[in-house]
């Protein structure tokens, strides 16, 4: 179990508060879905929680350590996936290179991850030649290659067809079953309902509801959540 604590965290941009203030303690296990309308602050929330962005006020910690420490222990699949101008295998190896893991050991780990994200046969192709679904699986492989404790997913299936989405979901579920905590921003209600254990709902930069998935969908408490689930904005 991984403990995430946010204490009075807020973040502003362009003279406007975009996130917070948020105070939250979460013991993450399995998949936690991060829901909310467009522009609500989901990406910002993930970036701040990961430690990629430092909040203007407040503090974020993971297992009592500041978020800025140990970022390598947290993998991230970004909304706009960086497709490095190199082979698929070399893309996946990048975090290992940052950790100084090279040579045979690197090749072994990368092969294992390629198999896991079902890209073994594309290992030596330029990453740019992959389809949308394959690119997202490559990004997923790159995010898990360093064996993170937490995996951040920022709408990775937003532009994928149903088959690619289903494959991605099933790989992520397997990763979560192996003990990796997953924070998954999505707009896909079915995905959140079937794959997550817990849901965080963000509206206007604030967490307005944090509940077990069953409770969230059966009896939402916050008004913005009810509006959202009923198809409103």
């Amino acid at each position, binding site marked *: 179990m991984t403990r995430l604590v946010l204490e009075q965290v807020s973040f502003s941009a362009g003279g406007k508060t975009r996130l917070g203030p948020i105070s939250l303690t979460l013991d993450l296990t399995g998949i936690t879905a991060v829901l909310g309308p467009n522009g609500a602050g989901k990406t910002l929330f993930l*970036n701040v929680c*990961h430690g*990629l962005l430092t909040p203007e006020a407040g503090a974020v910690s993971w297992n009592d350590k500041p978020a800025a420490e140990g*970022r*390598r222990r*947290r*993998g*991230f699949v*970004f909304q*706009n996936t*960086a*497709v*490095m*101008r*190199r082979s698929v295998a070399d893309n996946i190896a*990048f*975090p290992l*290179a*940052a*950790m100084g893991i090279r040579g045979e050991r690197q090749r072994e780990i990368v092969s294992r991850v390629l198999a896991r994200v079902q890209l073994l046969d594309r290992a030596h192709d*330029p*990453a*740019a*030649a992959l389809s949308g679904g394959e690119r997202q699986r490559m990004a997923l492989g*790159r995010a898990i290659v*360093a064996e993170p404790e937490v995996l951040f997913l920022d709408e990775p299936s937003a532009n994928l067809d149903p088959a690619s989405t289903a494959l991605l979901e099933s790989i992520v579920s397997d990763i979560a079953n192996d003990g990796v905590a997953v924070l998954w921003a999505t707009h896909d209600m079915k995905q959140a309902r079937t794959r997550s254990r817990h849901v965080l709902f963000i509206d206007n930069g604030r967490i307005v509801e944090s509940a077990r998935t069953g409770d969230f969908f059966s009896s939402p408490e916050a008004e913005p959540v009810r509006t959202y689930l009923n198809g409103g904005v």
Partner: protein
Amino acid sequence: MQVFSEAWRLIAEWNADLVMIVALSLRVSLTATVIASLLAVPVGAAVAIWAFPGRRVVVVAATSLMALPPVVVGLFVYLLLSRSGPLGAFGLLFTPSAMIIAQSILIFPIVVALTREAVLPLEREYRLLVLSVDASPWLHIRTLVWDARFAVVTAVLAGFGRALAEVGAVIIVGGNINGVTRIMTTTIALETSKGNLELALALGLILIAIALILNGITHAVVNMGRKYQMSR
């Protein structure tokens, strides 16, 4: 026609003077390109990646200096290397080393500006990824330069082309001394003024051939890079 056939004969016979001049040209320009690129590629990448005080000044300076008049660079290097100049004690004036220094100065801003152009879009795309894996500054710069390698090689080739075609600066600091600092462009200028058109034309043809080869290599490099380019 007579001039052309004589020029062709000089090339076909692999005339000793001709070979010496071409070899010195290539040695000077290749050395200048290597020295300038070793400094300019990291500087161009750093300017694209990191915000630091004066970054804007570097970018504007590099872009403006791309059109640096060679004679001004020649004059500047001449003043530096002349006996009464700050580096006069090294006795470099009117040697190939002086020409290499002048050409390096001319190439440097070109390679800085073109490397920055190549690295900047990748930095925007990779920024969060690089941050998320806590990459060291060294890995950061290496990653971007490697992934922009085809465009960076093109930038270096552009610098080499500029060096090879340059005449104003090297004639001032090299002095165009026969057998010592006489290179293709300065020889063409001199021999044409003397009416010795055969040698000038032979060198001109070789220069054009080198330019075409460089252009071919640049196209090949761009094509090699194409398969790694994104088409979103």
